[in-house]
């Protein structure tokens, strides 16, 4: 392992803390003892890699990847952007996985009992590898808002869940993307777990008219930043690395 393989320390102020009473479920699932800080070893700077052959041609097309009798119902939407690291470098060939509710706000999940109907042609998940520039894109229907049991009348704004790997296991990240202009965003208890308002704002995808397809679908732009790796200024490589 060379020193430049190490990641920059994670800035925890940009993330929600574990314990956030505004989101009640976190109260009993939050470690209370401080995390032990661990300098990176091979166990943290390495991580799984994925090959294009493992993915199917429709994996990034949520309108068609579960189609049984026709296309998924809803507002056809492209979501696209770049995965970069903290140094501004593209994170290429990394796996991006997404999941979401259907246009009515219902998840295809055995534990979801919301009254909105299941769309028989919508699975609600997709995946893709970034290209050499760190670029990804997928097509879907815009998810609906839905209620959840937090406060008496809590609603989630429309959102898409993202899972990203990066190049080392310490870069692993799961987050959620929101849509610009959604009136539920200021009331959301999950976004509210992030203390830094400008950090939370970076989870809101912007309407991207230039990337939309005229007479077909709208587009939203969502860039993702993972932790950067260290630079090796004045650092000798030790024997045995």
């Amino acid at each position: 392992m060379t020193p430049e393989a190490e990641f920059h320390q994670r800035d925890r102020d940009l993330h929600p803390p574990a314990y956030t009473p505004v989101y009640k479920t976190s109260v009993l699932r939050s470690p209370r003892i401080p995390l032990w800080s661990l300098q990176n070893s091979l166990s943290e700077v390495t991580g799984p890699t994925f090959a294009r052959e493992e993915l199917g041609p429709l994996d990034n097309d949520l309108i068609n990847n579960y189609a049984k009798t026709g296309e998924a119902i809803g507002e056809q939407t492209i979501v696209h952007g770049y995965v970069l690291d903290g140094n501004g470098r593209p994170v290429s060939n990394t796996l991006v996985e997404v999941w979401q509710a259907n246009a009515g706000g219902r998840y295809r999940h055995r534990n979801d009992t919301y009254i909105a109907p299941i769309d028989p042609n919508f699975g609600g998940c997709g995946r893709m590898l970034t290209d050499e520039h760190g670029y990804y894109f997928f097509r879907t229907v815009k998810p609906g808002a839905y209620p959840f049991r937090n406060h008496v009348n809590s609603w989630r704004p429309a959102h898409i869940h993202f899972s990203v790997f990066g190049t080392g296991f310490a870069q692993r990240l799961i987050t959620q993307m929101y849509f610009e202009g959604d009136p539920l965003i200021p009331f959301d208890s999950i976004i509210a777990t992030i203390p830094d308002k400008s950090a939370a704002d970076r989870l809101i995808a912007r309407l991207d008219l230039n990337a939309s397809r005229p007479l077909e679908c709208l587009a939203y732009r969502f860039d993702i930043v993972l932790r950067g790796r260290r630079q090796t200024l004045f650092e000798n490589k030790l024997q045995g690395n």
Partner: protein
Amino acid sequence: MTPTPFIPFYLPETPSQTAGPYVHIGLIPKQAGFEIFETNFSGDIAGPGVGGERIIIEGRIFDGAGRIAKDVLVETWQANAAGCYNHPSDSQGKAIDSGFRGWARTGTDFVTGLYTIRTVKPGSVAGRKGRKMMAPHVNFWLASRGINIGLATRMYFSDEEAANSEDPVLNIIEQPERRKTLIAQRSERDGATVYTFDIHLQGDRETVFFDV
């Protein structure tokens, strides 16, 4: 690496958000109740050509009230039996068997709360900057409803006492009692080797989690 011009210093990391109760849809759709992809990533990572001792890792995850958390995503990352990670940054010069990825993904069961990973026991890996060997271990990463940012921990093996006592990571944990939260207990069951690794998110037996 040289600095890249024209970017504003460093870019801030995208904030984490909980994986939510429906994480299975995206990452383990079969557990959500449907099939969609031809290739599914799984909790069985030791293919037929992979060398080493076959083991089963299983356990439950407990919340602060002592209740079993039955909707948690569990991912593991480990070296092969020779102690090599399947990744270009591993420059130890050891061989990787074909078919060994080293990464597993599963969820705790909706009914029993049990997670199960079938794999091979990893070997020792060189520690930070190659200074000291790390005892065999499996890296864990947990995400779920109620977990705002993924939790990283490590599982060590109860039958590696000598290596564990020299492990540079276990030894930075100030309280020896807490090191025990990272040791999986070995047992035999129906001819299989089982390591039981329960994780406590909170409470008297809170597992050691790492800021990596």
